[in-house]
């Protein structure tokens, strides 16, 4: 029997799809670190970065998308040795693959970085970076010391900025090598030189312009960091850097990202001081003249008061008060007198009334007396009646009180007679 293994035919798209699926799902290929040198670098206007990563024997395309490279702290350059991480992606249409870069760092940084970290830890434990050690920068420095290469851009930038800010500053440059094997020793020696009292320096700027990670290494050397920390003169670390700051920044009294910025920190703007003094002078002058004007106004207000203008005023007002009181008193008295008089005038009426009442009473009395008269026994007797009295001169009102032989007195209206009772006869 003959078996014919029928080959399976794929379309190109199918095979590319299969490869894509295989590669992109492979955990080993989706997260790798690759070491290489950059070339054919393109910073595309879209924000994506395209380059080829190569070493001596091979190359691979790489893409660094905008979303991933936006946090990149340094600029990639052709020829730069880098360490990148990311995953392999397949472009099905062309059957090509590339490295999708998620992060990148300069190669070689790793070892040095580790050394720096160790040194940092050691010096930090010694207290070299303590905030308490940091000195305040002078308010108005007269002499600026610079430690850097006399031929580099850094010294020019510092001088330019310093003179622009303060035209009559004194500058002492202590030249130092800022790259090469003896750079660290040279920088440290220059810092120590400027600390000698004979130079009478107020503030030091020590640093260099920007460079590669390796270029800045002298400012991560222990001897340099110690020189910064031990400087009795306030010192500013001025190393141009973009990614990690050098340890000299931690040891210095102040740090700046560029030499120019250091000069701005160290040297005050003379015109600010001049403006400030002028401003204070103006404030003083204004205050003084305001003060003078205030006193003048107060004085004017005082002297223009009526009492000073017309001293009789004080008398007049008292006079007026007196007159007023007097008038009121007189009026009161007048009123009182007239009211009393009115009362007096009303008195005769009462008298007349009393008199009339008396006349009436008298008349009534006369009438009464008349009536009384009519009732008087004498009056009755005058009409022919008489009264019989006993021996005790009591009136005998009944025949029973009288006996035969009694002597009685008979009273008449005009006299009396004594009589003897002859007989008594009682009637009903």
């Amino acid at each position, binding site marked *: 029997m003959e078996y014919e293994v029928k080959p399976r035919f794929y379309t190109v798209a199918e095979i590319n799809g299969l490869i894509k699926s295989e590669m992109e799902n492979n955990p080993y290929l989706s997260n790798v670190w690759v070491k290489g040198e950059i070339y054919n670098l393109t910073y595309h206007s879209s924000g994506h970065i395209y380059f080829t990563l190569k070493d001596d024997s091979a190359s691979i395309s790489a893409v660094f998308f905008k979303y991933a490279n936006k946090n990149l702290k340094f600029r990639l350059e052709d020829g730069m040795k880098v360490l990148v991480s990311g995953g392999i992606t397949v472009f099905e249409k062309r059957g090509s693959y590339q490295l999708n870069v998620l992060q990148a760092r300069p190669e070689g940084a790793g070892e040095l970085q580790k050394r720096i970290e160790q040194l940092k830890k050691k010096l930090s434990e010694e207290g070299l970076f303590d905030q308490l050690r940091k000195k305040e920068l002078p308010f108005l420095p007269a002499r600026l010391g610079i430690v850097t290469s006399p031929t580099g851009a850094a010294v020019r930038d510092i001088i*330019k900025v310093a003179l622009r800010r303060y035209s009559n500053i004194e500058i002492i*440059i202590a030249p130092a090598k800022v790259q090469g094997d003896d750079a660290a020793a040279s920088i440290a020696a220059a810092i120590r030189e400027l600390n000698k009292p004979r130079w009478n320096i107020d503030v030091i700027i020590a640093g260099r312009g920007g460079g590669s990670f390796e270029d800045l290494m002298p400012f991560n050397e222990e001897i340099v960091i110690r020189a910064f920390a031990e400087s009795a003169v306030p010192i500013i670390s001025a190393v141009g850097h973009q990614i990690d700051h050098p340890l000299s920044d931690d040891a210095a009294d102040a740090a700046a990202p560029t030499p120019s910025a250091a000069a701005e920190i160290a040297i005050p703007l003379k015109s600010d*001081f001049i403006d400030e003094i002028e401003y204070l002078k103006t404030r003083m002058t204004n*205050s003084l003249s305001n003060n003078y004007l205030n006193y003048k106004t107060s004085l004017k207000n005082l002297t223009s008061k009526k009492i000073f203008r017309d001293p009789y005023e004080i008398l007049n007002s008292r006079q007026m008060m007196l007159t007023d009181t007097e008038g009121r008193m007189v009026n009161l008295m007048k009123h009182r007198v007239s009211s009393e008089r009115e009362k007096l005038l009303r008195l005769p009426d009462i008298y007349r009334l009393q008199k009339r009442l008396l006349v009436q009473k008298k008349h009534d009395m006369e009438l009464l007396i008349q009536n009384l008269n009519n009732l008087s026994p004498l009056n009755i007797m005058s009409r022919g009646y008489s009264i019989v009295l006993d021996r005790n001169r009591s009136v005998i009102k009944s025949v029973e009180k009288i006996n035969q032989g009694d002597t009685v007195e008979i009273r008449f209206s005009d006299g009396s007679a004594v009589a003897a009772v002859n007989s008594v006869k009682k009637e009903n």
Partner: protein
Amino acid sequence: MEKDKKLSPKTSFEDALQDLEDVANKLEGGELGLDDSIKEFEKGIKLARYCQQKLEEAERKIEILQKGADGEVKPGRVAVKPDTGEIEDEDDLQGSLI
């Protein structure tokens, strides 16, 4: 600086400027009598003059230290272009003190 301390050449610019500001504040406070405010004003003017004088005290001068053959470090005056900060006679410069 103490209130009654006289200005001396040793008084720092910073102290004098602070005193000047204090004087201005005092005058603006409006609590001084006329005589006192004139006294304060005079003091302030003296301070202002002193500050201005201090600002001009430094002399514009740029020197570069160089190590001689005898090992001694000496200052050498150099000319610079102020607008660029460029040292004009760069050719003679040594790169280091060591």
